């Protein structure tokens, strides 16, 4: 029992210790690239709370959410069509495999050339890049639906709508969610990349601007904020997943313990 407590303390203590160490060792730092943590936190407060909150942070998050929502909706819907309609699968699958092999960030210059540097470009880049993980996971998820379940649905003469909503969607849900998680990370990366290319607003643009104008602690503040957003987005996603897939997680735990 005592040992357990000690280990737990170790887990909670190490990050705090590392932060304190960063603070202490950097306090006297004169290195241009690694300013004191104190200065970084000061810049963080000046920049993001709340001078640029509305003009940059909200804009970035809004683009991220909008692009991601589009990608999720289209990805799941198209995934169903491709998995269930044979012709669509044959026609679209090679194309999709080619498109998803392109590094998502490489699509950003193409969108810049097509629609300019505006908000549409960023939302579209995010949406297209984040589409593929969800799409492919959905197709795989539906294909691996238990054939017994399909037969039962057929015996009970489920309509197509019933089949989709009551058989396919729930049993593919775990895989769809892991696709959605990858999509979220891709969307986040493309959000930053789309802001770093060309003159624009947003957290990524602010961070790169600070770097180019040698405002090092401002750049660190941007990196810190992006890190926190990346982490927080993942936490929020996990919470939603745990709620929606509660039945699945519970059944897995039961299966493992027996």
């Amino acid at each position, binding site marked *: 029992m005592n040992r357990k407590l000690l*280990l*737990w303390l*170790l*887990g*909670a*203590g*190490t*990050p705090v210790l*590392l932060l304190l160490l960063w603070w202490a060792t950097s306090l006297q730092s004169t290195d241009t*690239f690694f300013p004191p943590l104190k200065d970084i936190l000061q810049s963080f407060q000046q920049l993001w709370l709340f001078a640029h909150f509305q003009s940059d942070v909200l804009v970035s998050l809004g683009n991220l959410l909008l692009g991601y929502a589009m990608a999720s909706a289209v990805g799941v819907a198209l995934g169903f069509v491709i998995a269930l309609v044979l*012709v669509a699968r*044959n*026609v*679209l*699958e*090679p*194309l999709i*495999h*080619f*498109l998803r*092999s*392109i*590094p*998502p*960030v*490489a*699509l*950003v*210059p*193409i969108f*810049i*050339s*097509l629609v300019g540097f505006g908000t549409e470009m960023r939302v579209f880049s995010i949406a297209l890049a984040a589409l593929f993980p969800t799409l492919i996971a959905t197709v795989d998820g539906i294909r691996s639906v238990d054939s017994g379940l399909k037969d039962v649905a057929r015996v009970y003469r489920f309509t197509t709508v019933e089949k989709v909503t009551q058989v396919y969607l729930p049993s593919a849900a775990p895989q769809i969610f892991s696709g959605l998680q990858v999509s979220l*990370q891709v969307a*986040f*990366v493309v959000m*930053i*990349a789309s802001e*770093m*290319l060309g003159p624009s607003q947003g957290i990524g643009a602010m*961070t*790169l601007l*600070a*770097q180019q104008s040698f405002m*090092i602690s401002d*750049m*660190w503040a*941007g*990196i810190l904020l*992006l*890190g926190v957003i*990346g*982490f927080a*987005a*993942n936490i929020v996603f996990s919470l939603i997943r745990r709620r929606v897939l509660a039945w699945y997680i519970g059944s897995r735990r039961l299966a493992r313990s027996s």
Partner: protein
Amino acid sequence: MKIQPKTLLTSAAGFLVAVAAWQLVATGPMAGGPLPTVTSVAVNLAAVVVTEAFWTSLATTVGIALLGLLTSAVAGIALGILVGSFEPFRYATVAVLEFLKPIPPIVILPLVVLVLGPTGQMSWFLVFLGCLLPIIMQTVDGVHDADPVARDTARSYGLKEPEILLRVVLPSAMPFIGTAIRVAAPGALIITVVAGLLGGGPGLGQSIYQAQAGGDYPTLYALVIVLGVLGMFFQGATSAVERRMLHWHESFREAAHR
């Protein structure tokens, strides 16, 4: 798996229709705009492929990606075994690793560019960091998955700790490590391209940036197509390597007999 000729035919037709649609849009409603025609992209692709500069930047891109992947595999497996074998280490690092995991390497790109400059070293470092965490975490999981009975058996046969590590723990962790590297490999390529595109590192990313900045859209599209093909190669190659190295593992055994 054998591909039906009919399937192949519909797939080819789908591809042709997509290309034809692109050509129609480029010559019709968007003629003279930023969307180049298929023919001009094809001509450009053919012209680019014969230049020496193209092959140099292709080789640079692949080289950086592979070197980054290799170094992060070595470091990641070593650290993963260390963290996985000693409980205090695991508890101390779990919170830190979980916090850092969802943060993509693009976040610290401005800092790395600042310190290392727009060099190949910078690209390598980003690839290294980006692949490191997933490999560490999978190795830790793999070490934990080692069969305790096999461990105890080895110990009762008088094997020393290093030997147990080499003959029992490491082989049982191999499938986890293999999966981690296969998942990380396309990421390595993507990060190399991102580092070139946003950070000015050498390779295809830089060529894409130059094509976009110079308004040379046919070359831009040609390069993105090259990246797509390269990405497909990378995925295929890493799966093949994984299958070869893990041919003894049960998830691959069945495939060998077919």
